[in-house]
């Protein structure tokens, strides 16, 4: 199976070309072709996963071609498959396939049907390149590729100016991060002469490169990650990205692309384990993002915006895990989050579909009667993300928080703040659930008549994802619970070969926690989630949509004014200075100088022209003066 690895990205690429070039001829079959392509990749990915499961070997490299072949730079276009890759392959193709299926029904009335599926396939292709690349450069190709697809899909309905602005914003903010990624690559290449994941761990471990140099690399790469994975300060594009069709939000802006930063840093664990200072920065950034995004999510009224900020917040949790070196926990949360967040987004899509495009939860309510499957699965998603056992979110979040708790001097303080974010998670998700599905319907009469459950093609993926959200946690049962049952932490064992030694601190005993401590922390986590749900129930069992928020809630609703601050301090001044440069520096300054020189030459030749008067006497007069000057200068020089 490993020898077929080239097929995994090739199938979606072919799907992209077919559905793209023949989008007008294919009609509705474009959706099936695109889905089949992704399904093919999924099958092969399963085979690869199966093959790797038994072995603890190093990864497998597949050579495609020499990408850069210069005298002093050699970077191959290679695929590299190891345990980490195979997990991401499964997530991307598996969830990707379900979302493709869902989209066939969701997008069926859109005139850009074929175009949509070609973009989706292009995205899957880019994402697969990202996870398959054997070096930072190939990863970067996929990295920018998914950014492009994100741009194309956010601006999918291109006649809307706001949407294309959102698309542009996403691309530019990602580019800011990408510059960090690029600088990281320059730093690595300049010192080590290679970008290969197979060679760098050893080179870095044995080199005498100063720690500050490594820290600079780590920081640059992390800046790249903040762009793609929507962390402070580069997170504001993600909520705007909800302008794209809802399946896109589920696939790209929740389940897969935004986790690329986590993948990249996990991939670079050999580097980050050597630079604790940078890890600390990652931890703090993750924590701040988790908190701030959660506060914003509590006050949003657009169903997709709530989920978007929730995604930002959950990504923050993953970065917290990376910050304390708990790579397995981060990947674990990537997987479970992919299940329940894809589920929630697709569920919201089903709601929006039923509401004829309405996204404002203030105009919904009482939908559980008409949308039974959507309601049921959405509720499962909410319970999963809130962290109620035995659903998947509980296990992955618990593992992260456990590591945070036992890390360093301030671990316990960070744990408290992390739990605060978890509390808000439970609160805003149940707020969303209660406002949308409970109470009485607040939409128009027309919408009310139109209310219907989505077709089977949409509800099937919902049910499958709901199932995964329920059982997904069993790949990572903590030892304290699983020990007596003879269940191991399967993910941890699977990922062990990927992580450098010293990064495999996972058992609670190694964390310095006793079993009883661990159980107390778990109980606390469940209690906090229940409090969050209780608060939400108390506040929204009778919902009044016209209530205006005030005070701090107002700040949350207005997203802490991040966009306004960026606009005032960066965007506007930049354009203002550019205008000034255009008007003054360029036209009056530089070009003025050039024209001035031209004019001056014209002017002086005009004056000099007067000397050629044609009067012989005047010429003789000048000649004499010239001779005297010569004579004097001669004397002067001779004297010296």
């Amino acid at each position: 199976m490993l020898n077929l690895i080239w097929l995994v990205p090739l199938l979606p690429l072919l799907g992209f070309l077919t559905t793209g070039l023949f989008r007008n001829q294919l009609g509705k079959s474009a959706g099936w072709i695109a889905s089949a392509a992704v399904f093919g990749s999924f099958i092969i990915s399963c085979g690869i996963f199966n093959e790797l499961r038994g072995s603890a070997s190093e990864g497998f490299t597949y050579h495609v071609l020499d990408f850069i072949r210069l005298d002093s730079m050699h970077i191959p276009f290679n695929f590299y498959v190891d345990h980490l890759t195979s997990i991401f392959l499964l997530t991307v193709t598996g969830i990707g396939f379900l979302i493709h299926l869902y989209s066939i029904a969701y997008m069926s009335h859109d005139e850009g049907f074929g175009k949509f599926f070609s973009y989706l396939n292009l995205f899957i292709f880019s994402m697969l390149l990202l996870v398959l690349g054997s070096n930072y450069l190939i990863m970067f190709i996929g990295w920018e590729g998914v950014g492009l697809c994100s741009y194309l899909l956010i601006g999918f309905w291109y006649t809307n100016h706001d949407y294309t602005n959102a698309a542009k914003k996403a691309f530019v903010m990602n580019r800011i991060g990408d510059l960090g990624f690029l600088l990281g690559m320059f730093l690595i290449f300049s010192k080590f002469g290679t970008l290969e994941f197979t060679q760098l761990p050893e080179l870095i471990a044995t080199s005498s490169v100063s720690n500050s140099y490594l820290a600079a690399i780590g920081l640059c790469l992390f800046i790249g990650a903040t762009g793609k994975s929507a962390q402070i300060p580069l997170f504001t594009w993600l909520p705007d990205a909800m302008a794209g069709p809802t399946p896109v939000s589920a696939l790209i802006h929740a389940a897969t692309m935004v986790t690329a930063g986590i993948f990249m840093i996990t991939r670079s664990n050999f580097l980050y384990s050597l630079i604790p200072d940078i890890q600390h920065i990652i931890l703090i950034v993750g924590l701040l993002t988790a908190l701030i995004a959660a506060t914003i999510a509590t006050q949003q009224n657009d169903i997709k915006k709530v989920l978007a900020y929730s995604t930002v917040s959950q990504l923050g949790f993953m970065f917290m895990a990376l910050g304390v070196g708990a790579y397995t926990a981060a990947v674990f949360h990537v997987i479970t989050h992919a299940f329940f967040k894809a589920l929630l987004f697709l569920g919201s899509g089903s709601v929006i579909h039923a509401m004829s495009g309405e996204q404002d939860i203030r105009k919904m309510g009482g939908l559980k009667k008409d949308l039974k499957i959507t309601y049921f699965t959405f509720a499962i998603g909410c319970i999963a993300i809130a962290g109620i056992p035995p659903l998947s979110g509980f296990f992955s979040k618990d593992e992260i928080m456990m590591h945070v708790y036992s890390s360093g001097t301030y671990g316990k303080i960070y744990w408290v703040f992390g739990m605060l974010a978890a509390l808000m998670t439970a609160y805003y998700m149940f707020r969303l659930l209660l406002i949308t599905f409970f109470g009485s319907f607040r939409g128009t009469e027309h919408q009310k008549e139109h209310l219907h459950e989505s077709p089977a093609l949409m509800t099937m993926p919902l049910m499958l994802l709901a199932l995964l959200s329920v059982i997904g946690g069993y790949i990572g049962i903590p030892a304290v619970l699983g020990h007596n049952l003879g269940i191991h932490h399967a993910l941890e064992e699977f990922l062990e070969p990927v992580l450098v030694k010293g990064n495999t601190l996972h058992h609670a005993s190694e964390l310095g926690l006793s079993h009883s401590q661990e159980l107390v922390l778990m109980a606390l986590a469940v209690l906090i989630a229940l409090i969050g749900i209780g608060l939400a129930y108390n506040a929204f069992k009778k919902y009044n949509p016209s209530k205006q928020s005030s005070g701090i809630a107002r700040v949350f609703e207005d997203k802490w004014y991040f966009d306004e601050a960026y606009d005032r301090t960066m965007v506007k001044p930049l354009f203002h200075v550019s205008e000034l440069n255009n008007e003054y520096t360029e036209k009056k300054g530089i070009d003025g100088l050039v024209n001035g020189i031209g004019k001056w030459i014209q002017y002086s030749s005009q004056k000099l022209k007067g000397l050629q008067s044609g009067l012989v006497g005047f010429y003789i007069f000048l000649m004499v003066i010239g001779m005297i000057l010569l004579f004097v200068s001669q004397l002067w020089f001779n004297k010296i």
Partner: protein
Amino acid sequence: MLILLILIPLCLGILTFFLPEKIASIIALAGNCITLVVAGLLYSAYSHEGSYVLNQPWIPTLGASFHLEVSSGLQILMLILTALTFPLIALVSWSKQPDQSNRFHALMLLTQAGLMGVFLAKDALLFYMFWELALIPVYFLCSMYGGERRISVTFKFFVYTFAGSLLLLSAILYIYVHTPVRSFALNDFVAAGRSLPLAQQKVLFWLMFTAFAIKMPVFPFHTWQPDTYEQTNTRVTVVLSAVMVKMGLFAVIQWLMPVLPEACDYWKNVVMILSVTGIVYASMLAMVQTNIKRLIAYSSIAHIGLMCAALFSQQNLGQQGVAIQMFNHGINIMGLWFLVYMVESRLNTQKLNEMGGVAKTAPWFTIFLVLVSLANIALPLTNGFVGEFVMFNGLFNAQTPYRFGLTIFAGLGVILSAVYTLTMIQKVAYGEQKFDFKDLNMQEFIVMGLLAALILWLGFNPSILMDLVSLNQHAFLK
């Protein structure tokens, strides 16, 4: 074979003046195609056998010889780019011939002859002659075809570049006087230039570099360019932008660096700082342009700035990146100008806010616009990426204390280019439909399809370019 590259366009150019308009365009296109075939043959011969020489005495009493030679991959790339540009221009604008098309095509052919000569000559006097020969027909093209302000703008362009040329001529003559046997041959120039004391080299550097910097153009010698691009007929803009600006970079590599290596090393920081300033400055100006041609002009200045900076990084890697990028930038900017040409010929405007919403009726146009724009901002898997990546690596490893700052500052161009390019796409293609914008016709589709294929293929598998510039690094950095 080498002489054919000059003779075909030269003879046909003279002939075309006297042909009736209808035949003129056909003869010109046929001539262009033959030249392209010859260039292709030269490439395949070169990759098998290596260098090609034609060396005849020209003005023996002065020590000037008619010395054409292909000895580096960079020359091959520039020759192919020149040979490719002209037939594509003719083809893309086939359905709408310019007034007095015989005169137009004749001048275009003469320009091509001059450009070929510039890239082939290994004799300083011959080089200078071709340098001017390429400029003169372009002067007529600019002043006879174009916008309302074309006369004054072209006059400035001509005087500006000509002033540079005079500085170049004075430097050539100064070095000539110091050659051991009074010869204009490149090899003798190299020996003479290097034997001069550093103080003189430093002055000579600016005489030559100013001429080349105006041509590229590098900040702050760039102000002729946006005006000229805006006012000239877009067919001519393609020539200026895709090929002629490369003359400056090419001359630095072929003449300035080998002849005055110590001075180049001495002044490199100044040049790199100017270039990198130019990247950010031009990118910022591109963001606020309301005229699409000026926007692309500033975008081009920013790109050239990166190439010039990488060139003076004095790193092998950076310079190879420049050679690759000179070709790829030619392809991409050509594509952009063709798209501008299509917009102009359909909507009769260059103003961005008078465009918009064409995606609905012109999907192919939009696809090509997006693809070429992405190549212009160096998205991976388009041809623009590899060269830029390699150049940045070169700049980053430059032997200068400022290398970090220079790289980061130049990197801002990566972000800003996304801002202005995506804004351009948005204003041209997106939004509500306003006009019945016709999608590409057959010729336009063929040309854009060819460019798109090049963009994607060279983006995925750039080894063909890499092999050209890396095998010949000795010739390249003589």
